[in-house]
């Protein structure tokens, strides 16, 4: 076990995969000499050379498309798109080509590529650089989407993504890069499409992924300490395939749920989860599934306004209180203390 940051886990895993498989190569803007906007690829150009660590022109559609072509018949490119916002420029290559070539070409060739890209607001990067548009990719059959929240999952899922024969969008988060945790030394790939219960509890289920899975854990610890509320936390880890069963099983135990998302509410991933819970655990629900999401506005640049728009831990606590009040569970507990 090593106690390292999310950033370090990504760096170390990329490096070991480059060492393990000569068909793995990195491509992206500023990843070589500049070592990546978030320094995930630090030192790699020197170690592996320009054929395997490729600085690309500022042309997202171009290098993503080139990676699709390289992946179709042998290589395993790991593309870094500087932020998920820039992936919009490559949307055609991701949704129309990477996701569909295996099917549209009758299974003749798959596209084993990874697109690593961070999402996340809260860094004062303004509306066009702070979005979470992973929904587009999570919506698309043919793609896999993973969104680890801990350094250990970052390692395990990056290993799995690089070794997977299908295209994987690997979602990172600006707010998570410096978070630390225990990471196993073994090279055991994680299972794409498997959620994790990261905290057990019996009062309410909290569901999140990426940064919001992290927030859910923090909130759960705070509620336990302050109010004796035991929340169960489900970290989705993968958005496609989506592990509905783990979520439903948890709700069958707690009978109520709050879904956390770092994204706009309407048509969002939270809506999919609320529908899945309703579908799988309707008879177990004691209250409507509630969602906590960001304000439906382009994210402001000004810090106080940005903070006002993003979902906070306090917002989550408020909605948990409302949900528990609706089922009469919090008053019982507060009275019991």
């Amino acid at each position, binding site marked *: 076990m090593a106690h390292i940051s999310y950033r370090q886990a990504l760096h170390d895993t990329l490096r070991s995969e480059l060492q393990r498989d000569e068909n793995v190569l990195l491509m992206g803007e500023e990843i070589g000499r500049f070592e990546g906007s978030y320094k995930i690829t630090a030192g790699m150009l020197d170690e592996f050379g320009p054929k395997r660590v490729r600085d690309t*022109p500022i*042309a997202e559609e171009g290098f993503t498309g*080139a990676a699709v072509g*390289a992946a*179709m*018949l042998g290589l395993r490119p790991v593309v870094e798109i500087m932020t998920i916002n820039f992936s919009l420029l490559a949307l055609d290559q991701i949704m129309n080509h990477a996701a569909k070539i*295996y099917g549209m070409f*009758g299974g*003749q060739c798959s596209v084993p590529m990874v697109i690593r890209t961070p999402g996340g607001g809260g860094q004062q990067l303004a509306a066009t650089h702070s979005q979470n548009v992973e929904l587009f990719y999570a919506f698309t059959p043919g793609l896999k989407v993973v969104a680890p929240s801990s350094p250990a999952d970052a390692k395990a899922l990056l290993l799995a993504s690089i070794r997977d024969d299908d295209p994987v969008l690997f979602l990172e988060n600006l707010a998570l890069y410096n978070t630390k945790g225990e990471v196993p030394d073994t090279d055991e790939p994680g299972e794409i499409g498997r959620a994790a219960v990261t905290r057990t509890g019996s009062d309410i289920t909290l569901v999140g992924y990426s940064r919001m899975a992290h927030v859910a854990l923090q909130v759960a610890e705070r509620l336990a300490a302050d109010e004796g509320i035991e929340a169960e936390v489900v970290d989705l880890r993968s958005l496609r395939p989506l592990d509905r069963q783990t979520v439903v099983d948890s709700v069958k135990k707690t009978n109520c749920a709050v879904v956390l998302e770092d994204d706009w509410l309407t048509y969002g991933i939270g809506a999919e989860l609320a529908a899945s819970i309703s579908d799988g655990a309707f008879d177990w629900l004691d209250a409507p599934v509630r969602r906590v999401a960001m304000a439906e506005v382009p994210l402001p640049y000004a810090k106080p306004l940005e903070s006002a728009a993003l979902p906070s831990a306090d917002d989550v606590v408020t909605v948990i209180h409302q949900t528990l009040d609706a089922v009469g569970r919090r008053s019982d507990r507060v009275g019991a203390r």
Partner: protein
Amino acid sequence: MSVDTAAQPVAETSHEPELVQLLTPEGQRVPHEHYDSLVADVTADDIRAMYRELVLARRVDSEAVSLQRQGELGLWPSLLGQEAAQIGSARALRPQDHVFPTYREHGVALHRDVDPVRLLALFRGVDQGSWDPAQSHFHLYTIVIGAQTLHATGYAMGVQRDGAIGTGDPGRDTAVMAYFGDGATSQGSVSEAFIWAGVTNAPVVFFCQNNQWAISEPLERQTRVPLYKRAAGFGFPGVRVDGNDVLACLAVSREALQRARDGEGPTLVEAFTYRMGAHTTSDDPTRYRLNAELEHWRLKDPVERVKAYMVRNDLADQAFFDELSDESDQLAERMRAECRSLPEPAPTSIFDHVYVEPTPGLVEQRDGMAAYLDSFADEEVHQ
């Protein structure tokens, strides 16, 4: 002195740009200072083989158009008029060179030994493409305009990674050929492919069949300069060739592919040709172009000029033409018969190629559909 060049007209637009031509529309061989040497090895046998492929490509196309008209295919994009551009360039390929086609490269497919029935299956909608690109080195048809130029560039990056350029070994050095049309040159993806290939010196030939029309949009809606001149802005050579001259297309493609194999980087070839038919069978070109233009190009027919050359030089006798005519008929007959007997895919096959390993959710959906379909089994028996 003031410098005010912004409003000056582009000088070249007042002249016709140079066009590489070795065979005139009348079938006369014209000398070319540079390109003669690139076809010096072409024998009478080669000319006959070329002519055979031109004829068969045209026959594959006309048969497919007929099958579409008879309701046997959903759609067909005709190559009529572009046979020489396709056969000439395809014959310049070596077995290991990899081709990224559009959806119109039926002539290239034919040359790469992809059975025309496999193309029919695709447009009949009974499969999603059933030839192996790794084996034929002919990729599957890309529908999104221009996107395959990026895939070709990425594949070329892999060729560079493998060190399969500039070794001097003719069985190893590899080029990548990306086909696209004049309309595609307006796509950002094509410009990005040019940029990438240019700055990485990728071993890729961008083979543009300028057939003058992007559905109903004429060339002047896509560009103010001759297309081949765009290459200069990206830092690699561009050449315009008579796209209806199979020999010139062979010569120009040979040179460009060899540059790529030698590690000298990309080339843009603009094959100046004409789409004699509709964009696809869903299109009616009489709504937007004049018959006079069609007649003008009919005189430059890519197949007839080779026949004229052969007759003029006594390269084939009547028996050759008769045999070819029979072969062509037999091919058409086989296409008709095999197209009509292509098996329909099972409904549950829609789940087959979403992921390499099916996900649990998809397996559940597939099994659900299979169970639902099985529930009708009794009814079918009673019908």
